[in-house]
């Protein structure tokens, strides 16, 4: 569908800003440790936590890599991994 254009900055549909591109580190969840308690989901400031089959983890299109989830996880199931330069 063609995006509706306005003369001025208003929006009737999401315009995706890929905030994940700003990330320096990404959170990686260990499915063996994750018990899906959703503490990370509760704390994530950008609502980027998704429910995967084996664990809860970040949607990397939006996750800015702030590390709050890793800090708050009571099971220490999340580690922050440096993003490699392309």
């Amino acid at each position, binding site marked *: 569908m063609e995006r509706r254009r306005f*003369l001025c*900055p208003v*929006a009737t549909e999401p315009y995706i800003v890929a905030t994940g591109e700003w990330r320096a580190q990404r959170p990686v969840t260990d499915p063996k440790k994750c018990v899906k308690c959703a503490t990370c989901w509760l704390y994530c400031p950008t609502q980027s936590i998704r429910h995967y089959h084996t664990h809860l983890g970040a949607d990397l299109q939006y996750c800015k890599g702030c590390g709050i989830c890793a800090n708050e996880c009571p099971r220490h199931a999340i580690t922050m991994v440096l993003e490699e330069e392309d």
Partner: protein
Amino acid sequence: MVVDGNKAAALGAVLSRPIMVAAYPITPQTPLVEYLSQYISDGLLDADLVEVESEHSALSVLHGACLSGARVFTGTSGQGLAFMYEPYIRTASLRLPIVMVIATRDGISPQCVWGGQQDAMGVRDGGWIQIYVEDNQEILDSIIMAYRIGEDPEVLLPVNVCYDGFYLSHMSEAIRIPDQELVDRFLPPYRSTHVRLDPEIPMAVDPLTPGLLFTQYRHGHLEAHEKAKAVIDRVDGEFESIFGRSYGGLIENYRMEDAEIALVAMGSPCGTGKVSVDRAREKGIKVGLVKIRSLRPFPVERLSDSLKKVKAIGVIDKNVCFGWGTGILFVELGSALRGLSIPVLDFIGGLGGSDITFDHFDLAIHKTLMAAEKGAFERVHWFGID
């Protein structure tokens, strides 16, 4: 009818039939809001008056009203305009054709409530159209024209009508009040088409805008300013055909046909300037005056055309341009007249409520004439200091 400038502005608003007015009611506000409040309570204006707690809120309230399709009005001055800076910029980016008068004052500091143009000229790059007027009749007429200009589908921009604090805002002179029927014919109701709040179509207003999209909005905004030049001139002509008064649109040329030197001024000093031109003409000096009405958009083409034949120009600046050592008009005019190698002199005066007198204009004419004849001149002269 004999009215001061604030009352002329209030009457201009009444005739334009806004359905909402939001304004901060006390200092730094002028008595404008008292007049509007009275007109609403007397039933002369059918509008909601929102007496907000700050100028920041005044303009923000009107954003909502204008986005929902309403014609709205407000006014401010000096410190109030400074407090409004954030929503001021948003009004222009959202392309809301709000009309706001500014009773121009010289500033926030040194603490001053008297006349000067520094407050309004300080926000000249905020994206609005800015019209500066010479007398109280022009205040009223320009407000009616401002809605036509701002609401034009080619333009869709907010418009400031700027009138000099105290010299116009608090001084009385006779004006003609146009018939409401004629104003209604000239200015039909506002129909917003480019953006409209609608509960059926939820809308995010001014969300985070990434670079490329941001650049597109800016490009469109600048294009609108360019298109506004022709609209301002055309609306002035249409206004004249109905009401019999013309202000020249972007600029007014006064005795410029055979002028050998020219003064360039803006706002209330133009009145004194025109009389000074008449007096100099009686002595045989071929001088004219160009009154800049539109600071934004800046009338580059028409100024170049008016000034292409003169031998020297004297600019009267009721403001200063920090970092240039001159006034703002001098800098702007210099950009407009690139390639024209004639003497351009700047005269700074009328700051903080001080007068620009006939003597000052006589001096400006004399120095400009000397520059034309001898070529040597000092670039900047401060009235009252030099």
